[in-house]
């Protein structure tokens, strides 16, 4: 492993990890403020089928 490999590997790993964790954090934080941020619970056809 050369210096370039270390740099690219570490930068890539740090970036994708922060990208993912940061996004998840925003989802969870927003979710706690507004109830069904991403829920499809009352939207999907299967729920309409059950209701019928």
């Amino acid at each position, binding site marked *: 492993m050369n210096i370039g*490999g270390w740099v690219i590997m570490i930068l890539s790993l740090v970036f994708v990890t922060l990208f993912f964790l940061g996004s998840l954090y925003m989802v969870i934080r*927003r979710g706690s403020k507004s109830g069904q941020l991403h829920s499809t619970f009352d*939207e999907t056809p*299967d729920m309409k089928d059950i209701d019928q």
Partner: protein
Amino acid sequence: MIGVILAVMGSAIGLGNFLRFPGLAAKYEGGAFMVPYFIALFLLGLPIAWMEWTIGRVGGEKGYHSTPGIFRILWPSKGSPYLGFLGILVPVGIYMYYVFIEAWCLYYAYQYAIGALPLGADSTAYQQFFATFTGQSADGSLFSFAHSNLMIFLLICYVLNMIIIYRGIAGGIELVSMVGIPVLFIAAGAILFRVLTLGTPDVNLPDQNVLNGLGFMWNPTTETTGFFEALSNSDMWLAAAGQIFFTLSVGFGVIITYSSYLKRGDDVILSATTSVAGNTFAEVALGGMITIPAAFILLGPAAAGGSSFTLGFITLPLVFEHMAWGSLFGFLWFFLLFIAAITSSISMLQPAIAFFEEGLGTNRSISITILSFITLVGTGVVAFFSKGLIGLDQMDFWIGTLGIFLLATIQVIIAGWIFGIDRLLTEARSGTKLPVPNWVGFMIKYVSPTFLLVIFGFWLKQNLFGYIDLLVENESARLTFFFILFLSGFFIMLIIQAMRRWAHLDEQTNQSENIENRGLK
């Protein structure tokens, strides 16, 4: 609460993250490959993902959840729903061969669990095992008694998929993804830990160690190729952009359906970004750190290459043979691939179900029954034409590659040029606190479609004529292609029926509104 995000991540995270990406990166001087990879992520992947999530929600607000219906809203014209037939053909067609590969993963996991794998240190044993098990010796061989094992596992996967999809989006797809994705990450984490602690397994081969294995994957230069020389390779840029495109499941017809179930106040930008981020993490931090380094460390540089199937089903089992506790990690690896596959395959059925329900007025049970029959026939075609995996290869090329390119291009052009960038940005900004700058509109309207068409053009130039020659020379390829044409015609006929139904429903709605208005007056 994050059900839809996990469902889309489940759809996106698949075999490609763990097999296709590492193979491509290693082929193109790994580290150098990451430069075009990340550039394509931000110029192509993220804008198209944002676009697809947004237009899905737009269609959903008007009551449409399938691509033909959503196109009808975005572009009110007689022809636009017919372009949407790709949004049904692509996910259903891909499902037909994806479930086949899913059965391979489950079978391998089972073989490791019962101790029937590994098969020793000879690579030909694994090649023969794979070739025999997948029926590559002759067409129709999988339908013989000798191959009943694969067919049993194929049936298990089939039934599992149908049970999950029958339970619906919340109770089936989301639930499986909410359990499956964390399990996948845990299994991948365990394997990653094992790979990174391999050290130098064979003292007689000191160069085959963890650091050199990681270097094989991540070094931007080799003895013969410098960094900037590697970056000047246009094939690498194309490969990276193509990988981004396929790995994010954009243009599959899946995201547009899932996002159609979101409300106006839901944050499609954050949802899209999180799904993309999750998929990229799985690909780079897990796939990029496991497959190629493990193959290099235990088998050497020559083994750390090959096609996705070679890497996944021949090379990796040989790797586990050389690894302490290899059976356990072999089981974990193929179980991980099975989870990745099933969370993807279940996502591929919902677009067609949504279309049957809204376009033909059938309820969920009948829709699933119709779809079960169609996909059973299609998977049967793939399983029958197993010599050299020609059936699978044909479906993957015409539907799983060409179809996706076409659908993504059509979506981008409809969204950017017909629906309009201003409206698209307004819709995207609804419900989000994330900044959506105006230059994103420029990217979606001009840069992404250009990038897409350039990749598409080069890819066609490299591949199309070879496959056309194959159609001329090979009967099995021809018959599979005819099946694809038949399936396309079938879906277009269903869209004709759906258009009549929608026109009738629109008429009834207009009449009711006129009566109400007269009443109010």
